[in-house]
């Protein structure tokens, strides 16, 4: 599979779409494992994000969501893992960019917010300094301007008394407030892409609702594209335009949000939807997916989901299915070999 990487690239001549903000092609992320081998945590992932779109990446723990996003940020250290494939932002290749160039992009064109608002802020720096730093790094603003801008950003994320808060330390704020600060920091340089890695998982539902609202508002204000990583299908349904479902390092299904929820195709997606209890309907019993989420490197061939799949075919154990296009939906499952075409 590794050898024909280049071939694959050639077979897919860049489909230049004016609307595409980020195009990820054949992304492979592998980590060194024991005995000089390596394991692939992300395996031939392709997707694109259009401008002003909110795309959700869902999947169970360990399936590779976070490292996909970190690879876009260029934050996977060289000695830890290899990032192969192409990541293009506004048609500019990011993979392989010099660290210095990449630093200019980080925080300015692509920003990121993380799951743990409690630990993602530096405990020894004041809030104002931390937000101001992004502005200082990416603009030529003076000290005074930085301060004005910082306060303005804090106002935008609806933090009360921003002129006081800038002199506070992170531990003096609640979780929700800190996540707002993180968002203010991420949006400070008006990035075209915001990656939010489970931004609300650690928060209470009422606070989660506030933060999701806020992200929606800001997105409209700033014309930002959002890549939202989550495992909460409820959140996906509420905010995403498009959804990508990931399993064991691969995208197994991709569709518009309504399509995905109304006509899920991949057995895994189906399983996920059947697993969750729902406020709006009463299920007597849930219908879970059997077995466990596999550990990285456990499965070497065939469809990685086949062990947990009710519909597994003979073929599934030998050959990993390609992504089949069915109208605007994409599914990685042999069940749709007939219906769809290989993308």
């Amino acid at each position, binding site marked *: 599979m590794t050898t024909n990487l280049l071939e694959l690239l050639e077979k897919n001549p860049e489909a230049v779409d004016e609307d595409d903000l980020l195009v990820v092609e054949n992304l492979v992320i592998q980590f060194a494992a024991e005995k000089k081998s390596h394991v692939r945590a992300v395996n031939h992932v392709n997707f694109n994000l259009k401008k002003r779109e909110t795309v959700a990446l869902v999947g169970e723990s360990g399936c590779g969501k976070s490292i996909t996003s970190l690879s876009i940020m260029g*934050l996977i250290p060289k000695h830890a893992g290899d990032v192969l494939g192409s990541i293009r932002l506004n048609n500019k290749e990011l993979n392989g960019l010099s660290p210095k160039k990449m630093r200019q992009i980080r925080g300015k064109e692509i920003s*990121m917010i993380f799951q743990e608002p409690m630990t993602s802020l530096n405990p020894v720096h004041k809030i104002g300094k931390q937000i101001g730093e992004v502005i200082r790094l990416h603009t030529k603003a003076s000290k005074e301007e930085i301060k004005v801008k910082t306060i303005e950003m804090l106002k935008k994320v609806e933090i009360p008394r921003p002129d006081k808060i800038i002199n506070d330390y992170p531990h003096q704020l609640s979780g929700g407030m800190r996540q707002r600060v993180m968002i203010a920091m991420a949006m400070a340089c008006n990035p075209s892409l915001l990656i939010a890695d489970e931004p609300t998982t650690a928060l209470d539902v009422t606070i989660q609702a506030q933060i999701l609202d806020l992200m929606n508002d800001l997105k409209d204000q700033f014309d930002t594209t959002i890549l939202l990583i989550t495992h909460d299908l409820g959140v996906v349904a509420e905010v995403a335009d498009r959804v990508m479902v990931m399993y064991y390092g691969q995208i197994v299904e991709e569709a518009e949000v309504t399509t995905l929820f109304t006509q899920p195709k991949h057995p895994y997606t189906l399983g996920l939807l059947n697993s969750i209890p729902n406020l709006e309907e009463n299920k007597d019993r849930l219908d879970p997916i059997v077995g466990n989420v596999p550990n990285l490197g456990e499965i070497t061939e065939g469809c990685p989901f086949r062990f947990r799949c009710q519909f597994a075919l003979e073929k599934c154990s030998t050959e990993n299915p390609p992504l089949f296009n069915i109208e605007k939906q994409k599914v990685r499952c042999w069940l749709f070999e007939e219906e769809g075409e290989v993308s």
Partner: protein
Amino acid sequence: MSGYIVKRLFTTLLTLLGVSIIVFLMVHLIPGDPVTYILGEFATEEAVNKLKSELGLDKNLLIQYFVFLLGVIQGDLGTSYITGLSVIEEIINRIPVTFQLAVFSLIIGSIVGILLGIIAAVKQNTIFDQLAMLISLVGISAPGFWIALFLIYLFSYLIPIFPISGYDGIYSLILPSITLGLGTSGNIARMTRSSMLEVIKQDYMRTAEAKGVNVFQLIFGHALQNALIPVITLIGIQFGNLLAGAVVTETVFALPGIGSLAIDAIATRDMPTVQGLVLFMAFMFIVVNLIVDIFYSVIDPRIKYE
């Protein structure tokens, strides 16, 4: 913040009280009679009794302790059995050398240690890391007296560029400071490294990277201040150990500090001096740690509001 300091001051006071009790008991539990020692063995009974009551040794232990404590509070650590001098004056005479020695060694140790630690952490698992750690381990493992002998032999005898012994200004303190600083730097380097590695793993470091911060700022602007918090405690503790470690160094280099005073005092069973010195050093140690703690709250804002 002031609440925190008040609390620290109180526990410090408590600790000091405990220290004074231990020191007092220690001296009074010692077999052997100070009076015989002062007067020599040919003294008359009468003289012995007279001196005993002069020294208050005929009172009960509790009263003696309070008298002692009262003295201590007024800065009076008693008088030496041997020289008849006030112990506190003796200490004050000697402390500058020890203090300078400790400070210099601490500076040497901290600078070398923190640098080694940063290098090791940033270049984790490379040859730099291993080398830095080996150096610091050797620093920790080599007995101080042995380093001292080695340095004297090398830099005072074979290549006479430093004075061998005695105190004649700061220049005399270079070799002793290196001797003491070496062990300290080892400890500090190891602590810096592990603390740095811990900090590098933290979420906020990833946040900083996501902002586009460069490596230098990442280490010195974001990581170091966090990483130094445990290192500073260690430095505080090391300072105390340096004061005590000075005993060996001062003996070898014949420096007129409190370390050599302590050894002399022990050899002559000059208990008031031993008692005063131990109390004084413990006091210094506690005060230094108090300062460190307070300094702490400056670099770690979380503590202030505890």
